[in-house]
């Protein structure tokens, strides 16, 4: 693979996707400290939001240590060169949240839907694209669930609403490099040349780096990852590892590799409540094609009802659950426990 001379923008997820393994309990002070260190390392863009996006504070997903507004205000003020993005899932957050985040000083809004449901983002993407200077990104989650041809139709919808960049998002960490190549390459061929393409990976099958490289080769110019992999499931593409590989392959990221490694080792790893890694349950997510943030919910329900988290996750995959259906996990666990007890 020859990627020599390609220029990409990396986007760190630690302070948004990383909220999942932290059960949304990262403090404002911790966020500021990490954001400042990432700024010094030259990471161009970082995402700061509740793990489930703006307005995610809920019984269903978890109440965070601080509000989106408190996090965004503090981080946007603290960083100098690094720009800040927020995530919004229509159905959870609204354009009111979007406006609030813009007022806090974000540069980028990412509007995320399930891969087949892009049309629920029209309201939000079209509004965002009319805000002067706001980088507006459409983000199609669980992109493994439909073939490339169908995915491109949905990406084009987001482009038509006004997104200047669209993402293929492997929320379940299920994709293999060929899955990424076929989707990104077809999107690159079919979308307007000025529309940027991004890839968001999860490391559940250990494919975060390989998939991100495949995306770059096929035409993606934005790659998501998180330092030390702090993210849902087995984490996002571990960003410092990806940066090192980019360095070896001559891909230009503009990030100081050693400083990024230091942030991962000195600030992110000590923050972890558990080692974010490929283990039995996070591997199951990738194998079964399950939304990565279901991991801790499945573990908790498994413990409460005396079940195996792997069994719960496999069944959630079989039922083709989508992002946001966290409420189905305890519901399913109760059904499984009842079936076991009556057997």
């Amino acid at each position, binding site marked *: 693979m020859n990627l020599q001379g390609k220029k990409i923008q990396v986007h760190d997820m630690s302070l948004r996707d990383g909220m999942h393994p932290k059960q949304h309990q990262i403090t404002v002070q911790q966020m500021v400290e990490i954001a400042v260190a990432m700024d010094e390392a030259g990471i161009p863009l970082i995402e700061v939001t509740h793990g489930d996006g703006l307005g995610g504070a809920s019984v269903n997903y978890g109440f965070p240590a601080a509000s989106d507004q408190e996090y965004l205000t503090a981080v946007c003020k603290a960083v100098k060169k690094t720009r800040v993005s927020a995530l919004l899932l229509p159905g959870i957050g609204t354009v009111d949240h979007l406006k609030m985040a813009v007022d806090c000083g974000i540069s980028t809004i990412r509007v995320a839907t399930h891969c*087949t449901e892009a049309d629920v983002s029209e309201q939000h993407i079209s509004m965002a694209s009319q805000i002067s200077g706001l980088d507006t990104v459409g983000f199609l989650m669980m992109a493994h669930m439909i073939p490339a041809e169908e995915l491109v139709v949905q990406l084009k919808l987001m482009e038509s609403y006004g997104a200047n960049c669209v993402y293929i998002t492997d929320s379940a960490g299920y994709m293999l490099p060929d899955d990424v190549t076929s989707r990104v390459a077809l999107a690159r061929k079919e979308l307007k040349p000025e529309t940027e393409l991004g890839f968001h990976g999860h490391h559940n099958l250990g494919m975060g780096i390989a998939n991100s490289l495949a995306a770059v080769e096929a035409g993606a110019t934005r790659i998501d990852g998180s330092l030390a992999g702090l993210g849902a499931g087995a984490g996002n593409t571990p960003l410092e590892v990806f940066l090192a590989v980019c360095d070896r392959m001559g891909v230009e990221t503009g990030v100081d590799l050693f400083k990024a490694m230091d942030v991962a080792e000195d600030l992110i790893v000590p923050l972890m409540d558990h080692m974010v890694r490929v283990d039995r349950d996070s591997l199951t997510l990738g194998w079964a094609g399950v939304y990565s943030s279901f991991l801790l919910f499945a573990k908790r329900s498994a413990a409460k009802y005396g079940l195996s988290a792997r069994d719960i996750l496999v069944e959630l995959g079989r039922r083709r659950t*989508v992002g*946001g*259906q966290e*409420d*189905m996990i305890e519901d399913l666990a109760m*059904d499984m426990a009842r079936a076991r007890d009556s057997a």
Partner: protein
Amino acid sequence: MSNKIRAAIIGPGNIGTDLLMKAMRSDVIEPVWMVGVDPESPGLARARDMGIKTTCEGVDGLVPHMREDNIQICFDATSAYVHADNSRKVNAEGAVMIDLTPAAIGPFCVPPVNLKNAVAERAMNVNMVTCGGQATIPMVAAVSRVQAVSYGEIVATVSSRSVGPGTRKNIDEFTRTTAKGVELIGGAQQGKAIIIINPAEPPLIMRDTIHCLTVDEPDQEAITRSVHEMVAEVQKYVPGYTLKNGPTFDGKRVSIYMEVAGLGDFLPRYAGNLDIMTAAGLRTAEMYAEEILAGRFVPTAA
């Protein structure tokens, strides 16, 4: 003199057609008009086949006929964006408007919780909140009538096939309107609503999760009894309203897991979200019709 109140349905889409089929069976409502904007609309063709008068000129095509046809109740199954206009026009002709869009310009109505109050207010426009609201607000109310609820949250998961273009263009109105209904009608001090659209095939039956945080420790026995009673009330007009799990208790959290299957009149059974809207809308209209027939209420132009 007919012993039924004559009605018009605006919006010949999925909701409008399902509502028409239910209204045809009503003892007190007689659907007379179906109103659309597209001459090629399959919904208008279906209505014509069922012997219903149709117009493809929108509400303006209906208005000149309302008095001669004695239309006293209209249902709006279009979208929030055009509802206010529609409502003003039919109210001016002396008809009550039952609003099935999330526009919510009139008082909210969730039949088993506040239908009697809504009808007693004699409002010329009542709003049916949202499908998620109809499915969940009775459960929030079932908890809040036992003890104070500081926070009520609902998660509605619906099949992709059951979510029409109006809702898709309008998803913020769904979350806002439902959350407001959880507060105003459900009785939670603070409300939150989440909607998830799932494209799985075969389509999943509507699922709803209701989480309430009570102010004091929940009275488990009283809440459980209240929830079961409320489920039975909703089942009177939506037989497929089913308690799947719960109520479960975790500290001050009360969680209730519902499944809502429709009658399968026009859309398949999985679209319980549409069925509960049309069933609730019709139930509301019937209460109005009974008041009109009994001479206790004369809808008049504002």
